[in-house]
């Protein structure tokens, strides 16, 4: 039952995406949206078809037609917590980088990241953070001359 729920969730999400894309694509001029219209419609039909097929299979009409690859991946709450941490860290890095600069943001990001993940050896945290920060600075900003944006506190 759990497998069916997982299959249906993905098809439902795809259906939702397809509906949004179809409604948006058909608002663009026809000569500029033929391809996205066709693909979005195909996606919509595919998602509907899959949901119908899944419903039929649940009633026992088509038991052999369910996609089988790796359907039983354990749904771990810890993965969602980890995802939350990762996605929350992106704006944090950008804010620190725009306020101060890349070096400070890099050091703080690495140190805070390692600490949040359970590393408690201060010497290790500092040495890894400083080492990676210097390597990133040397490679990206010195050797490759990547353009920095001006920061709110330190300017350019």
């Amino acid at each position, binding site marked *: 039952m759990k497998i069916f729920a*997982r299959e249906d969730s993905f098809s439902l999400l795809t259906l939702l995406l397809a509906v949004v894309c179809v409604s948006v694509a058909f608002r663009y001029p026809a000569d500029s949206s033929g*391809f996205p219209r066709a693909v979005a419609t195909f996606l919509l039909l595919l998602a509907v078809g899959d949901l119908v097929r899944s419903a039929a299979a649940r009633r026992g009409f088509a038991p*052999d037609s369910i996609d089988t690859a790796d359907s039983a991946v354990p749904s771990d709450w810890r993965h969602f917590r980890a995802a939350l941490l990762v*996605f929350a860290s992106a704006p944090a890095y950008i804010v620190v980088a725009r306020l101060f600069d890349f070096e400070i943001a890099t050091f703080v*990001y690495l140190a805070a990241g390692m600490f949040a993940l359970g590393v408690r050896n201060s010497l290790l945290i500092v040495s890894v953070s400083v080492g990676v920060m210097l390597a990133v600075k040397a490679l990206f900003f010195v050797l490759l001359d990547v353009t920095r944006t001006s920061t709110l506190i330190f300017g350019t």
Partner: protein
Amino acid sequence: MFEESLIGLTALMDPAMILAIAVGVIGGILIGILPGLTSTLGVALVIPITFSMPPQVGLAMLGGIYVASTYSGAITAILLNIPGTPAAVATLLDGYPMSENGEPTRALALATFGSAVGGLISVLALLLLGPILAKVSLFFGPPEYFLLAVFGITVIASLSAGAMIKGLMAGGIGLLMSTVGYHPLTGSMRFTFDIPALYDGIPLVAALIGFYSIPEVIDMIARRNDSAPDTTKSDKANPYAYFGEVLRQTKNLMRSSFIGVLVGIIPGVGASVGGFVAYDSAKRSSKTPEQFGKGSPEGVLACETANNAVTGGTLIPLLTLGIPGNPVTAVMLGGLMIHGLQPGAELFTTNADIVFGFIFSLFVSNLLLIPIGLVFAKYCVKIVRVPKAILAPIILLLSIVGTYSIRSSFDDILIMFVIGAIGFFCQRFSVPRAPLVLGLVLGRLAESELERSLALVGGDVGAFGLQLITRPISLGLVLLSVYAVYQGVVQHKRHSRMLDNQDR
């Protein structure tokens, strides 16, 4: 031609040439390992440095960077499930599972030897068949390019064996993502929602970094306290011990090299597609297709051989016709011109010493890949032993800075994370990610060539359809695409039946 080739060969006697090639190969490997840095960026950055060098030496360095960076994206693909460059996307399908199965050295050795062999064969093709093969690509019009993209997309069917509907959905989502940005002919904006960073479409490298590195980092963080046995102990320490295994797969090597060269010659397709097509082909002709996706050495060898064979292939139309087949060769065209060289027939006569010197330097670059690449790979293997609580933030940081470095844009970082979220959901729902990437890579080519083809027949769909079956190359590509879909369906059914039998 023989005499001109000999002149080129003598250029290799210059120690400065060898030094330039070695520096190029080392630099290229470093570029490929770091997510976000592509072969194009590497070549573009080095062109100003080569300006003060003699043309042969400068071009040799550029060639070394091109060849090595195409190869070294496989190192992170195999060890971390993150393709260092787009060319290595197909490699992670089996490279990372091999690493997980305790065979990272074997996977890296196969990738290195395969890359070197593929590269050498492609340079041989460049040397011998260049002018002849380049003529064939002149017969390619918009319908053929469109069908070429369609053929690439049909590989989705095979890549999703066992999860075909989910794979098709992922491919469809990838195609939709490729339509973000301006329309290739009219210039109208689609799905940009007034966000300037999306006007040029979803940046491919940022998308690839997000799609593969973010889910991997999340998984690392979630499983950081899991105690996994160190399976790498069963791996042979000496990567050269796997050379015999490579030689035993002669058919795979030859087929993948041929595919790579062919894909390289056709402009606009790229190394990542070469890798996917060769992977698909190896799977179809393998005695153990069920091993593909679970750590098949044949799969790793096929895509790495092919994606490096693309390098020589792309140089064929560049040097003979001045047509750059991909962004790297477009940048290299600039490099040639900076040195006062004009691609075309004259290049092979008036500047024979330079062009043949360059071609022979590519031979040396591919040969140097083996010792230099394996030394780097040997130390990179140790990465898998670093605690995940330390490795995860470093990878995330490199992904962020790597993404920023492409266009110096903070918006790209946000795009990378949004795509990362899609990748995370794909991973949680067991949706194969390769079809989505293929859709994203080929969608723009498919749309632009479709629109051009339709424009040529005044928008008449019937006339366009007729073109597809009346032009010989088009018809061949249509038949190939139909066969690829048929094979994919057969594989899917076989895979499903096999799992049913296992359940019983």
